[in-house]
């Protein structure tokens, strides 16, 4: 496993997402209110490109006729059959223990920590072959 630089922070503003290939996998990186999350772009049901689906709210209800809406923008609906996934954890809404999509550790790191050899800092582990890194920016890293 290695941390891969996938984006600058600025490229994925809050509420948006980026789809990319990392280590041969299609992954979606999401910015939820300044926090970054990455999940596999493949629904475990029939293989749809999950991360292209609509982002919506969690809808719960204590009883008929009541619709409690929360966590707006954090629930991803598969573009095909509408299965809902919690972007933060990759768990499906209808069966959180049994059905989930792979979620990847995601961190933000300043460019200065990624450009070797910074004085007094150890480089890596990170992979940035396809992503140019500069000390002025902050970057999103996904561990795959």
């Amino acid at each position: 496993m290695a941390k891969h630089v996938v984006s600058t922070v600025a490229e994925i503003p809050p509420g948006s997402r980026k789809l990319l290939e990392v280590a041969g996998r299609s992954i979606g990186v999401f910015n939820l209110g300044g926090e970054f999350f990455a999940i596999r772009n493949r629904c475990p049901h029939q293989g749809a490109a999950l991360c292209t689906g609509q982002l919506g709210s969690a809808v719960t209800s204590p009883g008929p006729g009541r619709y409690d809406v929360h966590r707006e923008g954090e629930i991803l609906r598969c573009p095909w059959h509408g299965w809902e996934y919690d972007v933060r954890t990759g768990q499906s809404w209808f069966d959180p223990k049994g059905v989930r999509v792979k979620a990847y550790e995601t961190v933000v790191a300043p460019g200065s920590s990624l450009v070797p050899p910074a004085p007094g800092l150890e480089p890596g582990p990170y992979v940035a072959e396809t992503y140019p890194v500069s000390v002025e920016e902050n970057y999103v890293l996904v561990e795959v």
Partner: protein
Amino acid sequence: MDAPNPTVIDCDVHAVLPSIGALLPFLPAYWREQVEQTGFKGPVDTWYPPGLPTSARPGSAPAGGGPAASTVELIQRDVLGEAPHPAFAILNCDCAVETLHNPDAASAVAGALNEWISAAWLSRDKRLRASIVVPSQFPELAVREIERRAREPGFVQVLLPVRSEAPYGSLNFRPVFAAAARHGLPVALHFGGVPGNPPTPVGWPSFYLEEYAGMTGVFQTHLISIIAGGVFDEHPQLRLVLAEGGFAWLPAMLWRFDKNWKGLRREIPWVRRPPSEYVWEHVRLTTAPLDAPEDPAQLRSAIAQLGSEDMLLYASDYPHAHGDSASDPVWEGLSGALKAKIMSGNARALYRL
């Protein structure tokens, strides 16, 4: 006379009104006069044309004439007195009250039917229990009738015809389930009913066979509606009985309903578990008709696919005849424990017998 067999409970036996005359002692004065002077006969439509082999098994018609299953003596002779000698029989009087568009007529006739059931049946044989007949097309009046009967120990269930103008899970009908739940009464949807609208989404079939075989679609509509509407979420103790509708169709419906729920559940967010889990917990089905295939192993596999051993309720459906027999090979292949539940265990738990 053979003693009642405590391991057998018959969950669907018909109590047939011979004519409106039998209700006269129980109707209020106004309605007695209506019957005597206007030609009002109460509900006249029946789902069971008297001449058909399915409507009355051989030997069930009373010697003196009149419809089969119209007196307690006939039930004592042919159901309680015959193998398998059930310890209890649940009477369903599916007189088509829903055809009466006058709400007060519907209410009066339903009330009189229940009085008649009480006087002419329940009080004459302690092995009998009965479903409460209600004016189902008027939910408020149905609630009143349930409140009137619920405390009589012989009434163990609320009866609804499976055919209706609107799905029973709809909001308008909720008070009826609330009343049944309040009194710990299961609600039974029974084959038949004469609501006036066609029994299919595509109009009126030509043949009796079509409506008879196709009735399973109507059972499905209500089951889906009741779960989707959150009736069981509102009333966790409520039980639903599907009577005389068969059961082999249920697994296919559950597969589809569960699959759809996974993606569409946001539309009914109060349904927090897969629909099949609600069905295992809340729904029971009688075993007549069996709708058995040539190969009994296939029906046994349908029984296994139901997903729960608590769901089936043995019934003779007297006096109707579906070509099933009590010695159908499907029963042989079932485990002793499952058979015991089907023959009485599930009914005892459901009706607290």
